């Protein structure tokens, strides 16, 4: 592979979308269209000789390097692409806020956590740990979230009343208790 072909390979590898010939041309503005096409051909040949786990395919938007489909199942089974076993710290914290303050709107959760929680809310909802339980009064009637049965099951609780009460937690929790009363 010459240097230009290597550059195109690196770009096709790192891109999060298929690359058009225009995209590839922009990588090396000095190259002629023929030179770019020749590099693409070289790559296609290299990967299509059946010697590799990767192939170069033409999809709607352009060219893309993909792993060969026959390996998909083995990769999925080894859980190499997806590996969600534990909730992230961000998800746990959001879940904690919702558990203790439900029903609660997104704005309030964001105010407490000091960060945007849109994505986290969606993923908690996808996992069935929280759900929309109503709408608040007032402007925009924002959605209110609460925890689900699955949440209780996950924690092995019979009901929300079995969550540790704030007073029973360490001293660090007192400020929240005060805030809740406000």
């Amino acid at each position, binding site marked *: 592979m010459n240097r230009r072909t290597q550059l195109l390979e690196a770009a096709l590898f790192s891109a999060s979308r298929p690359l058009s010939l225009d995209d590839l041309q922009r990588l090396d503005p000095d190259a002629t269209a023929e030179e770019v096409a020749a590099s693409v051909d070289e790559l296609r040949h290299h990967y299509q000789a059946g010697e590799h786990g990767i192939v170069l395919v033409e999809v709607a938007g352009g060219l893309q390097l*993909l792993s060969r489909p026959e390996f*998909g199942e083995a990769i*999925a089974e080894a859980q190499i692409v997806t590996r969600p076993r534990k*909730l992230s710290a961000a998800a*746990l914290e959001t879940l904690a806020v919702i558990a203790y303050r439900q029903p609660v709107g997104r704005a309030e959760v964001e105010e407490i956590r000091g960060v945007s929680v849109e994505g986290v809310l969606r993923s908690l909802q996808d996992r069935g740990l929280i759900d929309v339980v109503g709408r608040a009064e007032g402007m925009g009637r924002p959605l209110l979230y609460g925890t689900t049965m699955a949440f209780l099951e996950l924690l092995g609780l019979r009901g929300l009343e079995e969550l540790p009460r704030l007073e029973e*937690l360490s001293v660090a929790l007192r400020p929240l208790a005060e805030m809740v009363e406000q």
Partner: protein
Amino acid sequence: MSLSAVSAPPVVATSDTPFIVRLDAFSGPLDLLLHLIRHQEIDITDIPIAQIADQFLEAIDALGLNEAADYLEMAARLLRIKVQMLLPRPFDEDDWEDPRAELVRRLLEYEQIRELATWLSTQVELRADRFPRGWVQPLPQPEPPPLVVDLTELVAAVERVIEAMPQPVVHRVIPRPLDVEGATRRILTVLEERDRLDFRELFDERPTVADVISALIALLELARVGRLLLTQELQFGALTIAREPTHAAA
């Protein structure tokens, strides 16, 4: 890093050639202090504290209190060391403990951290030129592995949330010049009424940096001439001001 972002100040600063430093170019009071020391090629084991303290105060004077909180603590520390340096040394020099020693230790430790930060930054940049695979391929999804969460984790998460809750914002204030004389008068007036008070009682709800620094300088001066006693139980604890017994109220 931060240093290169600062326009070069004069090599030697005197009272008529004040430092002009952009504080937002510094990552904290230690960074600023190191800059003052290294830029003037001062021997770090023999810091002219009076000169450095003045330059430090000058640099932070223009700050609002909100940004200055971390800097104020350092200002107080410098002023305390400055006063300690003025106290008569014991006859036997071996018994003298250099009041600057702890500060020097912290500065050197911090300088190490800064060097490491530079290394990290270079490393990140080298790495930033190598990209991982950009596209996440949709693959047949196996049964997702069961989630693991327990109550302890949830409780820990609650505590983290509380710890990280945003602090109330103190509004920016317009800087005022230092007024050490006024602060001295106020302290003496209060001490005529009371035997002891907490440092914070000297201020109203929203003191300016100038207020705090003025009071600090006044206090340290009054302590030095023996008009009052300053005590601090813990390193970052409350500062208590007490009347010297010899100046007891009539």
